[in-house]
């Protein structure tokens, strides 16, 4: 302790204190402040750039997701549209078919009706015709009968043959 105190030089202490104070003040003013400020600035710049890159990346993924979503939607839409078209097509076909069927049925019915009426008319005509014919035959038979018995029979037979043909 004694040597320690003996070695201690108060003069050097005062001088070095003054020098250190000056040195600290000068270093802070001319060196540390500008250095630390520019280091901070640089770090903030780097941080900013990194943040921006991160943001851009997030935006990019968002965009990609958007695209994906849009694509998905478009695909779905196409699908539904196709489905609708297909349904429409089959509907139309079915409708047309049913309509045609109806039409055909109607036509068949009409035709049947027409045929029936024609048939009726034909029958009526035939009846009247047969009636006339039979009258004629009867007339001729009667006339032949009256002239020649054989001939009369022959006539009747041929007439009948003719009549059955019709």
């Amino acid at each position, binding site marked *: *302790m*004694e*040597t*320690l105190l003996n070695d201690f030089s108060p003069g050097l202490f005062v001088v070095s204190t003054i020098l250190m104070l000056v040195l600290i003040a000068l270093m802070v003013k001319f060196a540390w402040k500008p250095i630390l400020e520019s280091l901070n600035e640089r770090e903030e710049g780097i941080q900013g750039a990194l943040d921006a890159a991160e943001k851009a990346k997030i935006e990019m993924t968002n965009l990609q997701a958007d695209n994906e979503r849009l694509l998905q939607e478009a695909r779905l839409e196409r699908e539904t549209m196709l489905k609708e078209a297909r349904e429409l097509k089959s509907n139309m076909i079915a409708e047309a078919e049913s309509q045609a069927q109806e039409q055909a049925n109607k036509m068949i019915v009409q035709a049947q009706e027409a045929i029936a009426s024609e048939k009726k008319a034909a029958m009526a005509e035939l009846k009247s015709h047969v009636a006339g014919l039979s009258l004629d035959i009867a007339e001729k038979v009667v006339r032949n009968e009256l002239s020649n018995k054989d001939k009369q029979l022959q006539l009747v037979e041929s007439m009948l043959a003719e009549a059955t043909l019709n």
Partner: protein
Amino acid sequence: MEPVTYNLIGAGLIVIGAGIGLGQIGGKAMEGIARQPEAAGKIQTAMIIVAALLEGLAFGALFLGK
């Protein structure tokens, strides 16, 4: 014995004590690092600080005795 001899004995005792202490610090730090190598940096810093405190104490005692 002369006072100088007492001083020397005292200095020797201080050095022995400080040596044991430093050995403990270093050994325990090594153990810690071996157990948790990922904390090596933290342990080293703490070790240096504690060693420095011990060293300051030992030097203080040495100079007080001188």
